[in-house]
């Protein structure tokens, strides 16, 4: 119990901002517009935030927050409950497990790792939904979503790095 209280006590302003940003990133892709890109193409803003958070998070509550947002995404889109939770949690676990390697990798490498892992996530999602609904959905929307998300990664990731600079003590530890 002490452990839980201590861990949730670490829920600071940065964590709250990232959580809020993650919810907004899910909500913003549902905003209705008649301009810009096709509705079948969805920029995965949430993947940028999960990627960013996974590189830094060592807190107990982060996966819980990410699973919650996955559930919101499932509820909003209408995919089977658990589909996006699975993707978000696996994506987080993969990135978090590589966080030490990522810390020493130049930006192009980080981008490449994001591309591989987000590509795998989209593929897993496609297979999961195909398995659940017994249909093979038109993959083009998803392929384009993945490509656009990967292409825009440097812009949004740099923005996140600027808004949430790494804590100073991290440099001391490494």
């Amino acid at each position, binding site marked *: 119990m*002490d*452990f839980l209280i201590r861990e949730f006590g670490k829920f600071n302003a940065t964590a709250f901002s990232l959580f809020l940003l993650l*919810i*907004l990133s899910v*909500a*913003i892709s*549902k*905003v*209705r*517009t*008649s*301009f810009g890109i096709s*509705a*079948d193409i*969805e920029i995965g803003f949430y993947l940028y935030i999960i990627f960013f958070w*996974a590189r830094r*998070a*060592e*807190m*107990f509550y*982060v*996966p*819980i927050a*990410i*699973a919650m947002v*996955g*559930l*919101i995404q*499932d*509820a*909003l*889109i*209408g*995919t*089977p*409950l*658990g*589909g996006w*939770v*699975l993707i978000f*949690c*696996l994506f*987080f*676990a993969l990135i*978090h*497990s590589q966080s030490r390697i990522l810390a020493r990798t130049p930006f192009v490498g980080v981008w490449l790792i994001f591309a591989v892992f987000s590509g795998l996530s989209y593929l897993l*999602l*496609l297979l*999961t*939904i195909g398995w*659940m*609904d017994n*249909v093979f*959905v*038109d*993959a083009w*929307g*998803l392929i384009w*979503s993945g490509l656009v998300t990967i292409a825009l990664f440097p812009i949004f990731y740099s923005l996140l790095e600027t808004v949430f600079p790494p804590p100073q003590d991290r440099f001391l530890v490494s």
Partner: protein
Amino acid sequence: MAGRRKQISGGRTVLNAAGISLIFAMISILVLYFVPRDDPGVGQVRQTISELMSPIIRLLSLPAGVVDNLASKAQSYVSLAEERDALKLEVSQLAGARAELERTKLLLGRYRELLDINLDPDLKTVAGTIYADLRGPFAKTLLIDLGTNDGIQSGQSVVGPKGLLGRIVTVGDTSSRVILVTDFNSRIPVVIGTNRERAIMTGDNRAEPYIDFAQADAQINTDMLVVTSGDGGSVPAGLLLGVIKIVEGYAPRVELFQAPETVTQARVILAEHPSLQKLDLDLPAILGPDRGLGE
């Protein structure tokens, strides 16, 4: 496994964030496998979450709406002269069509009297705004700002200015989810062309749904009009859907009149369809048992 663990000050070893995340991933697989998708409870959870999220989505929609308005205004100014000419032409064509329509209405009323059926009930509708677009590769749904407070119920039909858009699947107090006719869970009974071939229009998440369960000898050709048949009583008869598009070697598809991306306002048909129930009972007797009106 050691990498998934984290040493804490008390000497106990617990899972780190990645490990906890994997546990959630495993739980989600169990949920995916064991929780039925069409369970009413699941639908209610979805609707509750959608209602909770709706203020955020509406707030985020405000700037998008402003940009949309500006863009459409700018576009209107650019094509003002062209639009005026096109409208003039359309008005003169409509004037001719209107006289024909009045005559057809009179005839139709007379036929109804003769057959003692009321195919076209006075449908009560309520208009609402579509504020969230939940279309994506996996599902084609929208959120409309009408709920139980406005008399909305699950299963009611939603129409745009040019025809049927979809049906209500879940209802909250102030918002409802609309499953589009293009969603792969959508099945709409239709009649095609003047031969009145009966079939089911089935969504597969593409922009153009396909025609399924048509009779083997059905004559279905390009540009035939597709309208709802009203079979089953859940969707009123006679709502416009689109025209047939044939590609050799594939099932006929329906080019929809009402593209979902262009609709911002839609109407929900509130009326129960007593006359349609009556239609189910009377029409086999009137038209013969082989018309596929169903059990």
